[in-house]
């Protein structure tokens, strides 16, 4: 497919200025990171605004903006729940309930809190799993950036990986967390100012909000034919059952899966997030910083969800029909169709001229790099304080740990690069990585919150509850992807490069009815054809008489249309490409045909409805619903096991729980704040706005 975006020299200059600026900031900040506390905790001097912007930016990476625009294109307005019920209640809970414990205990990290509350066992499990995950996520972010820049702009993948990671290595190694936080705040402005024009101009083109909604209602059934009855334009009224919304989820999964388990796990115990606010200069700033983050989080749908919705309303093909984008997993992706992930770049290319496009691309690169920097600085902190210090060298000097932090930053970048290259060769790992994060953060939340609110929770209870929930998460994930009777991917016919093809269309509708391959080579996957070699390893064989391949195939999972992909063929003497489904393909004598069949007992990309009905209460539950329900059950397992084990084991004496548990943690007296600095006031206002937004878009 052609490149989505083409930059002018001015756009390149804007990108180059960004790289120069972040390196200059890193060099400048080196002098302010000369002790462990300064390097790892930014000297605990952050104001509420810096902490809040950094808190929200650490999560507002380019994967986030592009990914959730894609979600909105796929799931409609439900995509906004990630910024409403899927974030705000948890952030408010972090600010008002959990922050005092994190802050008063003076912990360096969330695993550090586990050590204080439960002991070394829970800290080691959390510390090691967290360090592993951060570098993997960092590598995934880098890999995704390189791949996206390659697809959008044609940039070399290796150059993208090395240029961005070396830049991050320089500024994080020099300035530590302070440098990462500075760049996150900078990125916040760049993302907003680089992206906000897209929805503004998109709404102008759509004829305003009402024009956009009308266009979505008209186009969505054409773009998403498998969810014909789904409502794309509401937040709650379509959640009565699994099949009335495009996400295939119900209200219980949304509230308890996303709103409670996944959201609280992510926002309250993911150290990458929490680190941003526990370094504030005092408890009130930490709380207000978190609340500023909550207020800003509710605005993010304007630059993320809205472009996704506009993609359903303003993108049209040359023939005037709605432009259909497909998932990355679709075999037609990037051959004949753009993908869901392309919706934001498509809109950028459509509306942003020279200069503005450079700003948009810089915002994307800044998002990727600051996401990576956040992971690397969190990796350096947790590795140094929660793995290296307790397990390898307990009583070294501060200078030694500072040096370890700097080396860890470089090491973190190098491991991230290795992870990025691993993903380059095994790209299917990428889709499991997000699930891997769920495996750990939801159990971690259950363990931490019981430790904070229930003084009877014991070390053994915390450890075994945490481990049992991780095992339960992995078990559920394995179970829903297991197919005891075998899973066959959708049947597919691929026409080889240079094949000569003629197309027969319906005269009335113009729809393609038959594809005839005059010469060339054809590969058929899971299209049952007797007499064409053994399954899975057939050699190409020339067809001796004209052969018609079926338009659909009936297998154990039901009837599936055959996908026909023609990435580079010749039609009427002209090179072309196309992709269709459910169309008969006729092979002329002489065409070489290879046949293969795949059947898997374990298919990570597919969900077995026979099994999902037990995890997500319905055979109709779609992947997102299954993930949310898995999070919920994982939290339940964590709480139940922690409580049961705690009841049969000896709790810590209360004296050892001071400043760690509710009821035993006196709040520091910071004096009565002026009314406009009261966390309770701002928490109430954010809650009221959240309720209002949900009611308006009910």
């Amino acid at each position, binding site marked *: 497919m052609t490149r989505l975006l083409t930059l002018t020299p001015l756009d390149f200059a804007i990108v180059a200025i960004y790289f120069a600026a972040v390196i200059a900031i890193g060099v400048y900040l080196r002098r302010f990171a000369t002790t462990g506390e300064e390097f790892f905790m930014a000297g605990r001097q952050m104001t509420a605004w810096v902490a809040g912007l950094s808190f929200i930016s650490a999560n507002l990476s380019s994967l986030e903006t592009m990914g959730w625009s894609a979600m909105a294109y796929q799931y409609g307005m439900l995509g906004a729940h990630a910024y409403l019920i899927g974030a705000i209640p948890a952030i408010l809970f972090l600010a008002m309930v959990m922050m005092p414990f994190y802050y008063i205990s003076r912990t360096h990290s969330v695993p550090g809190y586990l050590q204080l509350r439960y002991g070394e066992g829970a800290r080691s499990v959390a510390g090691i799993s967290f360090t592993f995950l951060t570098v993997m996520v960092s590598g995934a972010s880098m890999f995704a950036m390189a791949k996206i820049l390659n697809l959008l702009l044609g940039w070399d993948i290796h150059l993208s990986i090395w240029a961005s990671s070396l830049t991050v290595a320089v500024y994080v190694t020099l300035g530590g967390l302070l440098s990462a936080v500075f760049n996150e705040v*900078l990125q916040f402005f760049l993302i907003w100012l680089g992206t906000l024009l897209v929805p503004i101009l998109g709404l102008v083109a759509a004829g305003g909000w009402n024009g956009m909604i009308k266009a979505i209602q008209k186009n969505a059934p054409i773009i998403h034919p498998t969810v014909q009855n789904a409502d794309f334009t509401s937040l709650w009224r379509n959640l009565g059952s699994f099949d009335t919304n495009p996400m295939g989820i119900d209200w219980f999964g949304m509230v308890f899966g996303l709103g409670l388990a996944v959201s609280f796990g992510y926002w309250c115990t993911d150290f990458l997030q929490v680190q941003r606010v526990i370094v504030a200069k005092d408890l009130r700033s930490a709380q207000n910083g978190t609340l500023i983050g909550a207020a800003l989080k509710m605005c993010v749908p304007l630059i993320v969800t809205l472009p996704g919705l506009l993609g359903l309303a303003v993108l049209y093909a040359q023939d005037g029909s709605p432009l259909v984008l497909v998932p990355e997993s679709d075999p037609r992706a990037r051959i004949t169709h753009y993908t869901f992930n392309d919706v934001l770049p498509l809109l950028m290319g459509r509306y942003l001229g020279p*200069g503005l496009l450079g700003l948009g691309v810089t915002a994307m690169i800044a998002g990727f790099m600051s996401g990576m920097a956040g992971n690397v600085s969190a990796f350096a902190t947790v590795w140094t304080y929660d793995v290296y210090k307790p397990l390898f060298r307990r009583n070294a000097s501060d200078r030694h740990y500072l040096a370890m932090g700097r080396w860890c930053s470089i090491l973190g970048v190098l491991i991230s690069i290795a992870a990025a290259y691993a993903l380059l060769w095994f790209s299917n790992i990428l889709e499991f990585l997000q699930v891997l994060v769920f495996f750990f953060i939801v159990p971690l939340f259950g363990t931490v919150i019981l430790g904070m609110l229930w003084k009877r929770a014991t070390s053994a209870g915390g450890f075994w509850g945490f481990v049992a929930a991780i095992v339960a998460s992995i078990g559920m994930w394995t179970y829903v992807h297991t197919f005891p009777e075998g899973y066959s991917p959708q049947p597919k016919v691929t026409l080889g490069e240079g094949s000569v093809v003629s197309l027969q269309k319906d005269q009335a509708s113009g729809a393609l009815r038959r594809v005839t391959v005059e010469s060339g080579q054809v590969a058929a996957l899971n299209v049952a054809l007797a007499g064409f070699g053994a399954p899975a390893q057939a050699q190409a064989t020339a067809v001796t008489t004209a052969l018609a391949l079926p338009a659909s195939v009936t297998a154990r999972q039901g009837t599936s249309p055959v996908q026909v992909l023609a990435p580079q063929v010749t039609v009427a003497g002209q090179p072309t490409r196309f992709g269709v489904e459910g169309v008969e393909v006729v092979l002329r004598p002489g065409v070489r045909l290879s046949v293969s069949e795949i059947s898997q007992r374990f298919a990570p990309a597919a969900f077995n409805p026979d099994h999902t009905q037990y995890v997500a209460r319905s055979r109709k539950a779609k992947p997102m619903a299954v993930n949310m329900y898995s999070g919920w059950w994982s939290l339940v397992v964590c709480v139940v096991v922690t409580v049961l084990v705690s009841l049969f084991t000896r709790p810590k004496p209360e004296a050892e729980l001071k400043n760690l548990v509710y009821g035993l943690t006196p709040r520091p007296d910071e004096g009565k704040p002026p009314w406009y600095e009261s966390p309770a006031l701002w928490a109430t206002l954010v809650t009221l706005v959240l309720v209002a937004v949900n009611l308006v878009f009910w």
Partner: protein
Amino acid sequence: MHGHRIPIWFFIGALLAVYGVLVLAAGLYGLVHTPAVELASLHAGVWWGALLLVIGTGYVVKYRPRRQE
């Protein structure tokens, strides 16, 4: 001691001001040579560049490094 630290807002302002100048210049050039994008008639580059410049300059002026008293 490490001396006085320049606020983050100054760096943000400086970068936005530079970007504002560049985007505004491209927008003004687009008044004569219209870019091949949709809604080019709205000249988004002009007013968006001006907005960046105003925000950036405001931050630079307010948070510029001053000699410590």
